[in-house]
């Protein structure tokens, strides 16, 4: 009976401690969906939450794992650069953004970073590269392509001080981070994962999703282009033909309006001087000057 009571108490204490730990790390996103509107040029995502005092925070934004193919550029006949061999990069995130409250290399050992795919080195150990013998060089080029496209950001794991920590009255810390999601980030669902780090290990994680999708007229045009290509093509041609046809008369009207606008002050001045000439006379004078 005594042993049973002791076991129950132990379980209760463990449950309470786990609940306390879970309660410490929270995550909140200011939006669940980023709409792509007609004037979209990227959007800011505010990531906030709480973490236990003394713990660091790492935030990782990723797209689902997929396979990507690339062409390697090489010099041909020692003269021209051209796409030569095809290489495949398997099980890789199309988008990968990493932020932390401290230098990740300093707060986590390699094994822990690899376990949670935190940093480019960890990422390299998990992706499958085929089609080349020099996988290190290819991975470096892969990162360069991704960073140039603003789809990857985690330079050398030294991304400290991006996540801001502030003490709360209850002894925990609050954290926040504003991530600029560039327009280059494609349509899709992205996971925002937060890792609480203490004593060189991840002690807790929590995650949420954010969706980037087109809305309104952008969605309508995109849908017609993809699903009704023939109709879309005819519409594009007809509108272009009408625009081309209309431009000459429209420019003609614009020229006449401009001329009228130039002449208006003269008419006013002439009227004030009591020498109001008929418009045709003024036009004739202008033509004669030209």
């Amino acid at each position: 009976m005594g042993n049973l009571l002791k076991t129950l108490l132990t379980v209760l204490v463990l449950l309470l401690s786990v609940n306390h730990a879970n309660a410490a790390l929270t995550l909140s996103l200011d939006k669940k969906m980023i709409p792509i509107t007609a004037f979209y040029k990227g959007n800011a995502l505010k990531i906030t939450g709480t973490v236990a005092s003394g713990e660091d925070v790492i935030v990782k934004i990723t797209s689902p794992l997929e396979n990507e193919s690339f062409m390697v550029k090489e010099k041909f006949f020692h003269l021209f650069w051209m796409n030569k061999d095809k290489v495949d990069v398997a099980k890789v995130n199309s988008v990968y953004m990493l932020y932390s409250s401290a230098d990740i290399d300093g707060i986590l050992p390699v094994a822990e970073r690899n376990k949670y795919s935190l940093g480019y080195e960890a990422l390299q150990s998990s992706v499958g590269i085929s089609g080349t013998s020099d996988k290190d060089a290819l991975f470096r080029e892969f990162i360069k392509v991704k960073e140039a496209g603003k789809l990857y950001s985690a330079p050398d794991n030294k991304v400290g001080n991006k996540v801001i920590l502030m003490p709360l009255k209850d002894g925990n810390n609050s954290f926040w981070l504003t991530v600029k999601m560039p327009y280059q980030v494609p349509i899709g669902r992205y996971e925002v994962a937060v890792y609480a780090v203490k004593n060189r290990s991840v002690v807790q994680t929590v995650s949420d999703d954010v969706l980037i999708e087109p809305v309104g007229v952008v969605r309508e045009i995109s849908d017609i282009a993809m699903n009704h290509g023939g109709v879309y093509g005819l519409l594009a041609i007809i509108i272009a033909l009408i625009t081309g046809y209309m431009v000459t008369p429209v420019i003609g009207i614009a020229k006449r309006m401009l001329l009228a606008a130039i002449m208006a002050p003269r008419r006013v001045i002439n009227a004030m001087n009591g020498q109001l000439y008929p418009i045709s006379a003024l036009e004739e004078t202008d033509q004669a000057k030209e």
Partner: protein
Amino acid sequence: MNIYLPVAHTSINLMIMLSIGTGIGLLSGLFGVGGGFLITPVLMMFGIPPTVAAASGANQMVAASTSATLTHWKLGNVDMKMGLYLLAGSFLGGGLGVQVVKVLNAMGNIDFVIKLTYVLLPFTVGGIMLGESLKKKSPDKGHEGSVRQSACSRLMGSLPFQMEFAKSGVRHSAILPVLIGILVGVLAAIMGVGGGFIMVPIMLYILKMPMRVIIGTSVFQILFTVIEVTFLQSYTNHTVDFVLALVMLTGSSVGAYIGTMFSEKLNTEQLKVLLALLILSVGVKILFELMSRPSLLLAYSFGGK
């Protein structure tokens, strides 16, 4: 102000794109070229995917060519008879060119061939045009040139189906413009352009047409070529970004109108020298790109992204 392109899935600065459209339209009206060989590289420079850049470029050229064709038509610069023969050839050549592209694609060399064509052709065409224009400025043309010219004329004159092209004031075999149309169609399919910058020098130096009729007839032929390309790209590849095309065509229509007005004021020799320099500069730019080490040694493969 930025706008989002629903097919290219990228955001662009509206004013920059309008300016580019106006600039390309200006060239279209001035020289009778559709601007396709300029528009695709320029859009790519601004982060538009190559396939979308080429297809949307064709769409915007529909408007620019319509505006330019109408203006040249009113000025009496379109040789309809010659234009229809060239068009028949270029439609046939376009079909043939698509098959050539298919074969090259299967061999894995299409990228290199396209770029090399973009270097070799502008250098040949631009070089010949510039050379001819500069040669005319010297008083003595030389005996050898006239002998070569008469041999070429004799060969063209011996072809059957000779007919009068009254608007251009020339007499040629109907086979000649059809053959030229086929050649232009093949090259246009490989290079993804309307073919104006190939057509103009051919009409000038082989068909001996007067420059103003050449420009009008060229934009007339380009109009139908880009209509065909826009529809095929929309239907098969879904790569026409109508919003991008609309922005570009707004600028290019105005530019084409202004360009056509200027082409009336500039003299023929000035036009030829300017066009030759423009064609050569495109060739130099692509040659430089081909020979310099790219900043990124990887490129997304089809289906990769």
